[in-house]
């Protein structure tokens, strides 16, 4: 077996040193009837054989590169420079562990410090952590953190919050005794939603969680909501599922949010059928001791040279056990590295261009499809994603277009299966990868199947 260096002669010699006759002497504590069970599994295979088998499975999937592609709703197809994937495959990054021995992990620690700075700047906040599993779990952690900060238990979720984020957050918050109020999803507009949400805030409210742009693509000014929340001592949590949008629109931090969480996949990371992704988590300096997750901080070594270490670990499970801020024991290290490399290449200038190109692609797509008979565009404002109302249920339309090799977007039923009013909705995303031919194919396809 190519991954195992020991041969039978080594094994025999080592058994002699240990003083056993049989390897199973080392498994003597295992109940006899449970040792060495029958395994209904195939035997080992060559690299070539494994590659063929997995290659055949991969070939059964229709990829984002195979034709026009307009799916978003929390994961976006962007172009990632070749440099990014090369660097993250360097052994010293790929095959290192959590930097618990900082003297021989300064590479990881320095990029985490840079990552935290990039994330805080991008999200418009003062500090960020070293990343979370993904945007949805970061959102749940934000709710739990708001509970700790305010010592209150009411969590309000905006109707425009991605329904999967809402599910994850609700479940985690209810487990620790929170009351969760979820405003109804309103695909038409979210400007009024701001007032409706504000009306739900009271002196028991820990936080209001609002996504911007929301799940339908609308962009809102969160400032009035932030003011209302702060007036009662509640926190505003801003959620961003398309982080590239922050290259074009005001960050939740600039609009008064106290915690901002985001899905960072769009920068540096592939679609990967949903994971691994990288959750971004940022807040104000005064709340750092309430933050979940790993933090990297600056310090000096015994010679006074600048260096970096994991810090504030007294919040974490390996020190605080059942009193920890979270049970989290990993960040999303390699995905955070990919994010940070891509962001270092883009810089503010590149990010703004990438955002502008994505926005322009969405404008062109929206105008083109809205001209199709029977199709209504529901957004006045949007970044790179918008919602259409079709004259018929959207899911069969999406299936028919998939048969024409067009991945047209996400039907409302996929995200809100219980809500009959949303069955005709189709949510469409465009990015800098979307070209004229893609848009023409979508318009032609929609015209044919509607």
């Amino acid at each position: 077996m190519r991954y195992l260096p020991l041969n039978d002669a080594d094994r025999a010699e080592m058994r002699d040193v240990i003083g056993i006759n049989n390897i199973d002497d080392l498994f003597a504590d295992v109940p006899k009837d449970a040792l060495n069970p029958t395994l209904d599994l195939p035997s080992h295979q060559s690299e070539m054989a494994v590659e063929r088998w997995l290659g055949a499975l991969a070939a059964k999937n229709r990829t984002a590169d195979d034709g026009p592609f307009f799916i978003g709703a929390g994961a976006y197809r962007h172009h990632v420079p070749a440099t990014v994937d090369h660097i993250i495959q360097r052994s010293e990054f790929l095959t290192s562990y959590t930097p618990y021995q900082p003297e021989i992990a300064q590479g990881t620690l320095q990029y985490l410090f840079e990552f935290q700075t990039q994330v805080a700047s991008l999200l418009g906040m003062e500090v960020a952590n070293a990343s979370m599993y993904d945007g949805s779990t970061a959102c749940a952690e934000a709710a739990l953190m708001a509970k700790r900060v305010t010592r209150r238990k009411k969590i309000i979720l905006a109707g425009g919050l991605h329904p999967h984020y809402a599910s994850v957050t609700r479940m985690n918050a209810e487990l620790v005794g929170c009351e969760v109020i979820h405003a109804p999803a309103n695909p038409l507009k979210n400007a009024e939603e701001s007032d409706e949400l504000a009306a739900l805030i009271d002196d028991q409210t820990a936080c209001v969680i609002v996504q911007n742009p929301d799940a339908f693509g609308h962009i809102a000014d969160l400032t009035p909501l932030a003011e209302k929340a702060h007036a009662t001592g509640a926190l505003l949590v801003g959620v961003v599922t398309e982080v590239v949008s922050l290259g074009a629109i005001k960050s939740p931090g600039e609009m008064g949010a106290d915690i901002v969480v985001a899905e960072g996949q769009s920068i540096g990371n592939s679609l990967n059928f949903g994971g691994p992704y990288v959750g971004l988590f940022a807040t104000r300096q005064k709340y750092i001791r309430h933050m979940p997750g790993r933090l990297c901080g600056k310090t000096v070594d015994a010679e006074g040279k600048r260096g970096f270490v994991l810090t504030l670990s007294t919040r974490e499970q390996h020190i605080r056990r059942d009193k920890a801020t979270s049970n989290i024991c990993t960040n999303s290290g390699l995905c955070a590295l990919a994010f940070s490399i891509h962001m270092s290449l883009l810089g503010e200038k590149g990010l703004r261009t990438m955002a502008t190109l994505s926005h322009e692609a969405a404008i062109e797509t929206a105008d083109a499809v809205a001209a199709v008979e029977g199709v209504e565009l529901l957004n006045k404002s949007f970044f790179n994603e918008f919602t259409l109302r079709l004259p018929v249920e959207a899911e069969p339309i999406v299936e028919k277009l998939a048969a024409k090799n067009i991945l047209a977007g996400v039907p409302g039923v996929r995200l809100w299966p219980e809500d009959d009013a949303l069955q005709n909705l189709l949510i469409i995303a465009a990015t800098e990868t979307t070209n004229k031919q893609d848009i023409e194919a979508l318009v032609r396809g929609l015209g044919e199947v509607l």
Partner: protein
Amino acid sequence: MSMNNQGRPTTPPSNETHCPPTHTGNKALQIEEALIFEQGDFVGTGVDFAPPKGLTPRLGGLARDAAMHLPGLSEPEAMRHYVRLSQKNYAIDMGPFPLGSCTMKHNPRLNEKMARLPGFAHIHPLQPTSTVQGALALIDVLASWLKELTGMPMVAMSPKAGAHGELCGMMAIKAALVARGEAETRVRVLAPESAHGTNPATAAQCGFKVDDIPADKTGRVDLQAFKKMLGPDVAAIMVTNPNTCGLFERDIRALADGVHEVGGYFYCDGANFNAIMGKVKPGALGIDAMHINLHKTFSTPHGGGGPGSGPTVLSEALAPYAPVPYVVKNADQYGLVEKRSQGAETSFGRMTAFHGQMGMFVRALSYMLSHGGDGLRQAAEDAVLNANYVRVLLAQEMSQAFAGPCMHECLFDDGFLKNSGVDTIDFAKAMIDEGYHPMTMYFPLVVHGAMLIEPTESESKEELDRFCNALLALAREAKRGNQEKFKGAPLHAPRRRLDETMAARKPELRWKPQTAEYLAAE
């Protein structure tokens, strides 16, 4: 000194013992590297795009005007920055990484290649299921391997890491208690004091109160103490097996029976499954839930701290509460159950936005297929053999915490350093100078000055001999009272020992722009 005929010396000058500082701070191949914020400017970029068309924006009047202070590096600058940073890291590909309970094994590059096939990497989680049949099949096949290896009927694939898998298992237990109408009365979770910190933290996150079970003098759960703690208010026990002392809980069936008799559930922490994969099916031992760290046992890379992946197997009793989404197979078609209303009414809900760590699934299955059932069993045996070989060799100079054989990791205490003036941390840091990553230190908490060594099956006998010889030499040196070498260690790493107290007392978690405006705001 010999020279060639141009007068160029061809042998080094005689012994240079003195090591003067360099002007640059660099030390040959070790290059000091500034932060990106100190070298890039805020107007450059290393990515070329087509020019925008200048369309009128529809951003609702909320365009971002303020500066973001994000530097952009050209491609060669970026490449050099990250390569230099990488050279300050230790890695499995450089040498043994004997962190106990972390299972730092070889990461095959075939796995990386497979995960990057466009058919896996460039597919969206919300594509119509008809267009991702290969991906769903892969998840289903991986699930079947995990079920077969653990002897369990159900596996939840979506948890994003080991601790997330713990959360999944404990949420399933909570949901089962709710269904039984006992959520209000069963409020206690029992966990050994040797448990990973994630266990009590997870239980607390599910609203349970945690009580520590003491260890007996062999390093295992104290069965008598455990039995006394049982009662009708117990929701579950959380036990790691093999445990964090590297020992198999030989009373595991008694633990399972005990908790089941009082109506509770058995959560088994599967962090150390590498010791027993293919050798024992935990399902045969009476467990109800167990997470599996694909990034430990099944070789997906640790990547400097993630991403992980923590599929969680569930017993018949807990299977109805498994989280959505999950893959189902109808005739020849794979589908996804994504909502309770799709026939998953008893599911406790959703753990994450999408279907889990697909990229890790591909890598783990690639590893499993390569090994096969026979190779996985051999890997577990080799991991245990290597750990015991190290245990026996090191016991010549170091103090083994608990007598007798171990599983995949061997535990020492600091008894052998008594009166030497050298502490566990000094010993660990001296290993860095010898070219090795230290073992896990000061964990588990049940042993004083713990040193937990897990070599894994990836080390050759020759590598283990070199490793043990280095540690034995250090142990002898410590006993001889040569403190200086230890207290100053590491001397040869990119950094000397770092001041963690200062970092925590006055946390600086980011670089700050040096603009007048920003400085004024400070």
